């Protein structure tokens, strides 16, 4: 069944087109990741789906309710964690939780089971003011508050931005736990490596959806042979690769450079010869499967 249905949504702010004819579905019980950089339109879409912003054109429903006409109903069945920390900084952890529970006509105890795994991390600090928590703790409190009324759909706008790699990993473990409990999760992130944790992802750039599929299918649709290349002098390696007529694309990727070649060229002969002629030492060239980030950059290049 469909939890979120988005049809031809567009949104402009004066001359800037934030969303350009977006359509897709989020299935009930899945984690759907909206992946794209700052300014790609992720937050505008979240604000439309959470009934905080009106689209210029198009329609969207959540659990069958229209985001414009049924906005009151939608606010009861969704949990929303905005990108900017928006809890009350001068209330304590527990006061924030009680406040959100009361607003939705429930109590912490009533839905404690649902938030337990997450809230336990911060419960020892329940008398601390929210403004005095670390980044990772704030994020856990915000998630607990978004969950306290047992929403059917969870909307998380960049919950892991600016959060360190350890806290990011913990946060995704929590989301997987919530998915087990049957909650539909729509989450946005600028971190491409988080795509793999989602059931399906949409790659968004400049207000347009470039691709919507499972992470596996997006990787499979990469049309080129991809090579990971390195040598002792990475700076010179990049410059040389960029100048070579054999090479189609060159992107730094951790301690390798990811390279695709012009049609018909073979890495083992042409590229190796080329790099040896340029006096590179300890050359490694290996064929690798693409990551989501490779696919994203390929799609970006194609769109331009």
């Amino acid at each position: 069944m469909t939890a979120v249905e988005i049809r031809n949504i567009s949104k402009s702010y004066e001359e800037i087109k934030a969303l350009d004819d977006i359509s897709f579905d989020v299935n009930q019980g899945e984690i759907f990741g909206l992946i794209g950089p700052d300014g790609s339109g992720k937050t505008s879409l979240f604000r439309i789906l959470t009934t905080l912003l009106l689209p210029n054109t198009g329609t969207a429903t959540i659990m069958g309710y229209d985001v414009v006409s049924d906005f009151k109903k939608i606010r009861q069945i969704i949990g929303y964690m905005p990108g900017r920390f928006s809890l009350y900084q001068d209330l304590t952890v527990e006061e924030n939780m009680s406040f959100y529970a009361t607003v939705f006509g429930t109590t912490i105890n009533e839905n404690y089971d649902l938030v337990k795994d997450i809230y336990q991390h911060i419960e020892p600090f329940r008398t601390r003011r929210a403004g005095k928590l670390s980044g990772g703790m704030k994020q856990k409190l915000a998630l607990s508050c978004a969950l306290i009324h047992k929403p059917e759909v969870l909307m998380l706008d960049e919950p892991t931005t600016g959060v360190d790699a350890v806290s990011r990993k913990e946060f995704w473990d929590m989301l997987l736990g919530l998915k087990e409990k049957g909650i539909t999760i729509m989450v946005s992130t600028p971190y491409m490596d988080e795509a793999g944790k989602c059931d399906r992802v949409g790659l968004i750039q400049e207000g347009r959806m470039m691709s919507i599929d499972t992470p596996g299918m997006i990787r499979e649709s990469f049309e080129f042979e991809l090579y990971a290349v390195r040598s002792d002098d990475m700076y010179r390696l990049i410059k040389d690769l960029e100048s070579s007529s054999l090479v189609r694309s060159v992107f730094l990727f951790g301690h390798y450079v990811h390279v695709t070649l012009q049609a018909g060229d073979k890495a083992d002969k042409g590229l190796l010869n080329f790099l040896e002629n340029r006096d590179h030492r300890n050359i490694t060239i290996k064929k690798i499967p693409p990551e989501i980030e490779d696919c994203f950059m390929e799609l970006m290049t194609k769109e331009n």
Partner: protein
Amino acid sequence: MTNKAVIQVENMVKKFGNFTANDNLNFEVYEGEIFGFLGANGAGKTTALRILCGLSLPTRGKISVAGYDVYRHREKIKKNIGYMSQKFSLYEDLKVYENIRYYAGIYGLSRGYIKERTDQLLDKLGLEHVRNKLIQDLPLGWKQKLAFSVAVFHNPSIVFLDEPTGGVDPITRRQFWNLIYDASEDGITVFVTTHYMDEAEYCDRVSIMDLGKIEAIGSPDELKNNYQASNMDEVFLKIARKEKV
């Protein structure tokens, strides 16, 4: 990269009341090196960065930056470094060329020099066509590339970059690192913080902080060997896995 240390930190301690934000840090950064300064949120990176930039005094320790002592010559330090952050870099309501002129002017560069370098810079970045645009009208990626170029406009010996690529699209993020490499080739030392672990691999050496201490320091290859990890993400998780409050 040379063996000449441009940042020397010995037994650096910074306390806020009872809280020790930097707990006896010791490290050196060499001329022309790209040095990655990593750590979990709240590990004490920003505190250390502010001391090295001459914005805050340490509680104790012997620290010199670009050859100047952080207690006695903070103004000299500021003249000899560049700085950019994710949160604030350029004035949104000034035009592109006005931002360049403003920052270059602060460092006392001559009008003629500023004019000539501005043309070169915009040409190199491919931003000539937005010279007269307000910063607020540029995409984030362009802003960050421009902010970096402004931060090194006065040819500082060291540039400090605080999460310069947060939220930037993946292609621009790589173009940004190409600018960093270029600066490093020109002999500018780069001191950078990031949450992207693939970017840690682009550094000559990295340090990883946890709970106010430097837990590991070395080249990415050394750290991967020491921690038996296949990439820097794993190294980071092994060092900074403890729960923070």
